[in-house]
């Protein structure tokens, strides 16, 4: 079956439908989680560790408990006494308690929670708690952690979620909680030109503007949560496990999110809220302040030591990468990130000889977890800087060099999985054309030096995963779609409606998506990793197709014709034989003999993989599909101040097929703007484990003044054979190559190669000075 065959008859896919809830978003009338009605709740404040690594000798809660308005003070030890080891949660490793039990592992870790009438009373009481510590040696960076100067965890505790981590259970005396290895050919092979370097990407934070929020309450024998989460299905399982409840006694609801970018998934505030509500048999609300949100999760700081070698023909003959992910005090999903990024650590290039070692490493810092790009931008920083330098060493145009070496359709990636629907060349050509790559450049202008740079990026989609959709067609011809995908600004409510509408020939506004509610909406692995359009989109497409078949059957009965004679159109079902037409409304009314009735169809879409070989990382199918993107930039460097100014940034992503080009362009642009921050100034700064810039007065985010003079998002479409109408996701595609594209342009402008992010004015100016002195 070709993609065209499966295209719906409708006119929804490819249309620039307005974003669902657009007006409500603009007017501030959209209800986010904290605006949703919940029972009257007690407020929760936590007392936090003032040590990076210490044993908790005792916790004195007396003064806090004595304060007016305080209902309860709960410590990690209290919860451990009630819940035992079930207190420990986490997607890859069950290593994180919501309140520290026997020791603290980072500055700011919650130790005790105050439940009180009003947040002011709760906070005041939390300040009264005192903790007696015995300090332990702290591990502040990956090198110290690998050396094992101290161990953050006594033993490794893989969770039940990922079977392939089982062998790590109980392993002691290490801070490395996971190691991914990839081996192909003879990685020590060298061509005539070899480059090698050390790269560093610092930890950063997502900073969605909506703060994390969870309300939890007990309703009879059930617990209910309203939470800012991208992963309601995961949270339900996690809370059910923690409280030893059957899944039908846990209800998790989400609402549209005010941004997330990976910050609001897996276990964040939910375990604490649920544990408190359940043990107190009441209703509690946990709200993180901005300063607290910085402690909940971060993006991994990553060190990469890497090399790349080319032969005399300019073909890449070998590439190696030693990647160290700093995952902080708790593994979260770090081991998965380590593997998924390790797979692409040498880039989307045709290379026969590859070695990658990618390690996930505990340190005494706040836990690092998923962040738009899932660890791939940090390795792309390495391979796209290296490949650029390799081209320059050879005296070749960096775009042309990439062009020759980039993987084509059907060629094997480093993992041995073939490429499909990953048009690197199309993306590269589109962005270089946009910035007039080959046109002459005025390289010097007063204090300014001008240059151009380019980079590409590759990422594998999360595999295997499960998506479900339930489609309810109402008698009047409108539809209600039940999925657990969470709209967090990426526009999934709009995209999923368009997919269903395309199949059923419905118009804009006729398909309504229900917000995730585990009592109502079916299981979905996660809303993350740019997976929803493809996976949930396929479940929606399948459900809609089943619904269409159902309508066709009803119409066939009604008209007394065979099903093959019928076609669903915008006017309804049309019989070729009888030339009769019946609208959906009439058809359903006729079938049930009642108004307001519903037809229901459901579908599941599950992907599978072949697990990668433990020693070589090879697999014929390591992923369901690939993401391909590119960025090209023209910029100036002020030689007096070191400041980089972007004149033109062009980004492109192969999205298979753009379901809604407007929303796709916004994702391409939005990820690029976030990437500008990572390239130039966005980073979390630590001193001995303490975040020193953990407020928005100090933490740097791109504002409207950091926009490039020109930003061009470009959609590239090479349809995926099993994507819904050929589509794939897009949320991360352009953040991946962004930082190296900018650094490569700085290199082009100044001749200086900077390998540590971000490229702050100071770092650039210092590098320029050192280069001029050398």
């Amino acid at each position, binding site marked *: 079956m070709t993609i065209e065959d499966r295209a719906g008859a409708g006119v929804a896919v490819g249309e620039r439908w307005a974003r669902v809830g657009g007006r409500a978003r603009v007017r501030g009338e959209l209800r986010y989680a904290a605006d949703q009605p919940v029972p009257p709740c007690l407020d929760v404040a936590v*007392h*936090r*560790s*003032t*040590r*990076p690594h210490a044993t908790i000798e005792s916790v004195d809660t007396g003064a806090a408990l004595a304060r007016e308005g305080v209902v309860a003070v709960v410590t990690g030890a209290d919860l451990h006494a009630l819940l035992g080891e079930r207190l420990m949660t986490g997607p890859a490793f069950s290593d994180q308690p919501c309140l520290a039990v026997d020791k603290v592992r980072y*500055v*700011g870790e919650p130790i005790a929670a105050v439940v009180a009438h009003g947040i002011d009373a709760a906070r005041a009481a939390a*300040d009264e708690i*005192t903790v007696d510590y015995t*300090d332990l040696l702290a591990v502040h960076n990956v090198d110290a952690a690998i050396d094992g100067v101290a161990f953050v965890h006594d033993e490794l505790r893989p969770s039940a979620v990922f079977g392939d981590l089982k062998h790590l259970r109980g392993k002691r005396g290490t801070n490395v909680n996971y190691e991914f290895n990839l081996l192909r050919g003879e990685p020590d092979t060298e061509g005539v030109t070899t480059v090698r370097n050390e790269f560093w990407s610092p930890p950063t934070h997502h900073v969605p503007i909506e703060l994390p929020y969870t309300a939890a309450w007990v309703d009879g024998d059930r617990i209910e949560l309203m939470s800012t989460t991208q992963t309601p299905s995961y949270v339900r399982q996690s809370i059910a496990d923690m409280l030893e409840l059957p899944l039908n006694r846990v209800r998790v609801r989400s609402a549209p999110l005010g941004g997330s970018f990976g910050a609001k998934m897996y276990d964040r505030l939910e375990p604490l809220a649920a544990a408190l509500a359940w043990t107190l048999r009441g209703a509690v609300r946990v709200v993180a302040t901005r*300063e607290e949100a910085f402690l909940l999760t971060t993006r991994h700081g990553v060190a990469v030591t890497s090399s790349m070698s080319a032969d005399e023909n300019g073909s890449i003959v070998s590439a190696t990468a030693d990647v160290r992910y700093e995952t902080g005090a708790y593994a979260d999903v770090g081991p998965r990130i380590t593997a998924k990024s390790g797979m692409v650590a040498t880039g989307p290039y045709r290379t026969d000889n590859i070695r990658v070692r990618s390690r996930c490493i505990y340190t005494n810092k706040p836990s690092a977890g998923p962040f738009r790009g899932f660890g791939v931008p940090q390795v792309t920083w390495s391979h796209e800087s290296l490949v650029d330098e390799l081209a320059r060493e050879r005296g070749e145009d960096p775009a042309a060099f990439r062009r020759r070496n980039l993987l084509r359709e059907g060629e094997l990636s480093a993992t041995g999985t073939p490429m499909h629907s990953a048009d690197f060349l199309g993306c590269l050509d589109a962005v270089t054309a946009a910035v007039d790559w080959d046109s002459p450049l005025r390289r010097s202008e007063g204090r300014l030096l001008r240059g151009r740079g380019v980079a590409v990026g590759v990422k594998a989609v999360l595999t295997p995963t499960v998506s479900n959709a339930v489609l309810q067609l109402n008698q009047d011809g409108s539809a209600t779609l039940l999925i657990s995908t969470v709209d967090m600004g990426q526009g999934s409510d709009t995209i999923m409606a368009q997919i269903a509408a395309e199949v059923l020939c419905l118009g804009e506004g006729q398909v309504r998506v229900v917000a995730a509610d585990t009592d109502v909406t079916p299981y979905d692995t996660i809303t993350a990793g740019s997976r929803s359009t493809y996976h949930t989109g396929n479940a929606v497409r399948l459900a809609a197709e089943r619904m269409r078949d159902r309508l066709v059957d009803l119409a066939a009965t009604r008209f007394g014709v065979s099903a093959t004679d019928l076609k669903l159109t915008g006017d309804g079902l049309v019989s070729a034989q009888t030339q009769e037409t019946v609208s959906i409304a009439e058809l359903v009314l006729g079938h049930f003999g009642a108004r307001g009735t519903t037809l229901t169809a459901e579908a599941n879409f599950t992907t599978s993989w072949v697990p990668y070989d433990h020693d070589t990382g090879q697999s014929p199918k390591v992923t369901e599909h690939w993401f391909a993107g590119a960025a090209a930039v023209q910029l100036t460097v002020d030689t007096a101040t070191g400041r980089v100014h972007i004149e033109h940034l062009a980004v492109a992503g192969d999205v298979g097929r753009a379901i809604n080009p407007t929303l796709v362009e916004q994702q391409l642009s939005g990820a690029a703007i976030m990437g500008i921050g990572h390239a130039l100034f966005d980073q979390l*700064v630590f*001193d*001995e*484990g*303490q*975040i*020193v*810039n*953990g*407020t928005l*007065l*100090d933490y740097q985010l791109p504002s409207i003044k950091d926009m490039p003079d020109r930003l061009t998002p470009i959609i590239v479409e090479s349809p995926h054979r099993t994507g819904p109408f050929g589509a794939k996701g897009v949320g991360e595609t352009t953040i991946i190559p962004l930082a190296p594209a900018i650094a490569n342009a700085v290199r082009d402008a100044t001749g200086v190669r900077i390998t540590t992010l971000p490229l702050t004015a100071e770092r650039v100016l210092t590098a320029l000075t050192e280069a001029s002195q050398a």
Partner: protein
Amino acid sequence: MKLGSSFVVPAGPSRVFAHFLDPRSMRASIPGCAELERVDGAHYRGRLENEIAHVRFSAGFACEITELREPEQVRAVLKGEDHKLGSSIKIDALLAVHPDDTADGSSRVDYSMDVALWGKIGRMGESIVRRRSQEVERQFVTLFSEICASGPPGPDNPALVGTTPAPAGTAMPAGHRTSWWRRLLQRLFGGKR
């Protein structure tokens, strides 16, 4: 945060070294050290009080001498906690004294400190903390030099007579608390100003 420097004091190394270990001398030299007493040979305890901008920090601390190379080098680790402020401090300090080549009877003091601040105070702004630390450093150099110059440790050292603990730093709006410079001058010169 790393701090460190060296300075010359008009006293011989052995006297300087004796001051290193004398709680009374150190209390009078360390700005904001409100209390300091020796628990046993290698352990001290005390209280640090300091004001950084609008913030008052008061931490009981314990200090352990982790390395002692008589008569030239002492390494001590100080750990303190201000419960009220939800903050703690750790200072790993190395103090060394050598004969000074440039002048007879004087010595050069080298010090280096690794200061960690954790909790609310640690996140209130690195520049503010750094600036305050610079001030504390300068005061320490002045006070310690004066004490070394005035004689050996003990109650007879004129620089130590009548020293009373006082919090360092100033509060906003400024001026209503005697500035540290004035307090320093009062301490050194008996309130001549």
